[in-house]
């Protein structure tokens, strides 16, 4: 390994008990530009009042249907777009404040994109692409190149074979390995993986997932793993966050969520997985219809239009995250005692309905 004296991983600040990343009330509304001069046409509520934490050293999986705000969330965390409101706190320090200026934050948080081809500049060699970020942060050209070659070896690509080639000469799996190496070039502490394996073959997918697990231990990383593939999320994550229409539906340890989902949306998602057992295969989808329009989300619980357990109270009361029996938290009136839902704990009607 080449000795690179500068640009090492930044030290831990708040100790292991302090979350590495805290998201508070994160909201992103995209204005609709159809009216005169783009005014008064309403907004798309892509992400609405999102609250969650990522603990040090864990992998938080984020799942949800297309259009539920997963990618917007990742770009908000990366500070690639400004939130409408809310804040991101990294290791106890607010991002963008004086203690955590954006440039320092960017060294600590990096991202791997879904499209392995579009995320590599076609005019740069692999080596140059990986060395770009360290050079931006002041590492010399030679040291950056050396680091790039070390990282190529770390992601399982022979530096002599790959360092001086161009993205179009490589396969999708190889390109995604390079994107991972590029994300690690600044020695970040948190890596956002936005559907990193969705565009890969199943066999390559498994290789890349195992590589990610290895690198996590090797570099002491924390992952936020965004995917729509429930099996992949189950394999990768310690905790899972289920998103629906820009809100958290359920969050908790992966075992709790996969074994006994408390939110009907999570249950429907899990039931929609293709089964390996022919007897358990189902022909009718567990969820019907498309998610409602985020321009005009339904009042109350956003899922009540597609929920099998919806009652009148669901369209009037907005559920907040509440502890559920298996150890997770769910935003559903059925886990909130005294919410007025007939299936809520302690409800008089519960015995009859169940």
């Amino acid at each position: 390994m080449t000795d690179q004296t500068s640009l090492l991983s930044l030290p831990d600040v708040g100790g292991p008990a302090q979350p590495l990343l805290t998201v508070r009330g994160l909201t992103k509304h995209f204005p609709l530009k159809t009216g005169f001069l783009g005014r008064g046409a309403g907004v798309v509520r892509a992400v609405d009042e999102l609250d969650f934490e990522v603990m040090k050293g864990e992998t938080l999986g984020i799942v949800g249907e297309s259009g539920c705000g997963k990618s917007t969330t990742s770009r908000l965390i990366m500070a690639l777009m400004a939130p409408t409101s809310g804040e991101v706190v990294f290791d106890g320090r607010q991002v963008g404040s004086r203690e955590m200026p954006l440039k320092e934050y960017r060294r600590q948080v990096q991202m791997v994109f879904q499209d392995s081809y579009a995320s590599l500049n076609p005019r740069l060699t692999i080596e140059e692409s990986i060395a770009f970020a360290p050079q931006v942060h002041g590492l010399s050209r030679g040291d950056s190149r050396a680091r790039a070659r070390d990282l190529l070896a770390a992601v399982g690509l022979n530096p002599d074979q790959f360092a001086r080639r161009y993205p179009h000469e490589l396969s999708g799996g190889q390109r995604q390995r390079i994107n991972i190496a590029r994300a690690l070039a600044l020695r970040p502490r948190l890596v956002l993986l936005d559907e990193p394996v969705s565009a890969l073959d199943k066999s390559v997918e498994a290789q890349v997932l195992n590589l990610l697990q290895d690198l996590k231990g090797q570099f002491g990383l924390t992952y936020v793993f965004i995917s729509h593939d429930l099996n992949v999320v189950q394999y990768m994550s310690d905790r899972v966050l289920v998103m629906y229409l820009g809100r958290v539906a359920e969050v908790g340890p992966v075992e709790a969520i996969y074994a006994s989902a408390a939110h009907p949306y999570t249950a429907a998602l899990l039931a929609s997985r293709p089964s390996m057992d022919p007897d358990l295969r189902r022909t009718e989808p567990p969820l019907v219809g498309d998610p409602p329009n985020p321009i005009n989300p339904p009042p109350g619980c956003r899922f009540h239009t597609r929920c099998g357990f919806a009652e009148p109270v669901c369209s009037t009361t907005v559920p907040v995250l509440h502890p559920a029996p298996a150890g997770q938290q769910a935003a559903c009136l059925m886990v909130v005692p005294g919410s007025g839902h007939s299936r809520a704990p302690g409800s008089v009607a519960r015995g009859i309905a169940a």
Partner: protein
Amino acid sequence: MSTTTATPAVLALPEAAPVKGRGYWQGVGRRLSRDPVTLFFGFVLLLMALAILFAPWIAPHDPYQTSMIRRLRPIGFQDWRYPLGTDELGRDMLTRLLYGGRLSWFLGITPVLIAFVIGGTLGVVAGFAGGWVNMLIMRTTDVFYAFPSVLLAVAISGALGPGISNAMLSLTLVFIPQIIRVAESTTTSVRNLDYVESARASGAGAFTIVRAHVLPNVLGPIFVYATSLISVSMILASGLSFLGLGTKPPEPEWGLMLNTLRTAIYSQPLIAMLPGVCIFLTSMCFNMVSDGLRSAMDVRG
């Protein structure tokens, strides 16, 4: 014996030699070298460029030497000293075409080059900055777009008065908005790609991102578009000269020659056509070469 002892070393997996990838421009060069049409027209352009560049050495006569006796000699070898005949003032056509090409090429290429620099910069800025900067630059170009380019060139040239520099200025002004448009749309499409996002996420400033990630990916397409404008520029420049807004007689220039020779169109139609043939050939060659460049650069993956 030495060969047999060496066998086990050969059987072991050989250490792979370092691989150097083939870059984008190498690929473009390879595709161009397999495109005979583009190569042919490029070769014709090269010949013309050399001919007009070395006109003082090649040309058989003085381009300004008039003669009342030799007026409007026909094309051919009745008089071997004037293979392309003489014009209405008895000047050798071959000589004047060679000298005239210098000014015509200059008037064709210079405005496009200046417009490429100015329009390219403005377009990349508009495309990368977005927002109100984009709005300001693009709506201003729309004003220029409201007029047909010929009309605009004539109007600006007419307002500024005749002369080579004014003709070039008006042509530059005509081409800037067109190049801005192409530069802006190319830059906008590149700006939204993940590798630019990733560069932003690594903390690079706007200037670094444009230099390292945007320019290398947009300059090629903008340049190809600019080369396709050279032919338009030549024709417009000739048009301005024809209208008396560009070069002034007795300066040889293809457009102006077309104008002065129109008096001879009934007596020597072939000679009157010659400058037009030159303009047509050159602009067609530039178009073909720019088309070939475009298709050589278009391949992805």
